[in-house]
């Protein structure tokens, strides 16, 4: 079974440009997470979905970040316009959402460099 798939793996953009990241979770997983991980730091939650609903977006900088999860499957995370401080690795993870099966599976991430 395929794991969590993210694309692209790497992205370099100039500041003020838009950028989008895509995530395909494990089939059947209702819960989807987007995290941002700065160099040498732990992942920080940006947004969490239960099916199509964003149930926790309190850490998402809504002035420039947006996300969607159409049909409760794939998800995209967008930044517009990007700033230098947005350079980081963006991780997507999914879990089944079942109480006894709470493991979150992670994708390989997208490394964003804003120049």
């Amino acid at each position: 079974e395929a794991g969590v798939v993210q694309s692209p793996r790497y992205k370099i953009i100039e500041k003020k440009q838009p950028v989008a990241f895509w995530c395909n979770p494990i089939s059947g997983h209702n819960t989807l997470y987007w995290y941002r991980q700065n160099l040498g730091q732990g992942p920080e939650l940006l947004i969490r979905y239960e099916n199509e609903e964003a149930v926790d977006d309190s850490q998402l900088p809504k002035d420039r970040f947006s996300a969607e999860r159409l049909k409760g499957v794939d998800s995209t995370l967008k930044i517009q316009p990007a700033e230098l401080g947005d350079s980081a690795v963006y991780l997507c993870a999914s879990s089944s959402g079942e109480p006894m099966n709470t493991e979150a599976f992670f994708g390989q991430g997208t490394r964003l460099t804003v120049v």
Partner: protein
Amino acid sequence: AQTVTQSQPEMSVQEAETVTLSCTYDTSESNYYLFWYKQPPSRQMILVIRQEAYKQQNATENRFSVNFQKAAKSFSLKISDSQLGDTAMYFCAFMKWSNYKLTFGKGTLLTVNP
């Protein structure tokens, strides 16, 4: 809000020896899950071990075991017979039972030396 603290930014161990990574957390929840994740240089986060807070018995997975002290809110990871492939960042994480919110610590960089 839940917080997870890993007080050891870096650690090193000789191959075949045992090492313990520390983690403490702060929560008012009574039901929750705790995890240790490993992130090798390739970047993909991999689950190492999981502990349910309602279980008193410490979880074990082959060479990996935890010391879960619920009253002290402590959750340390012991790696026995360390191998070169254990070199990675290790993250302690907390998940609320009620909403599956997953919060990570800042990580510990473990280096296993030959």
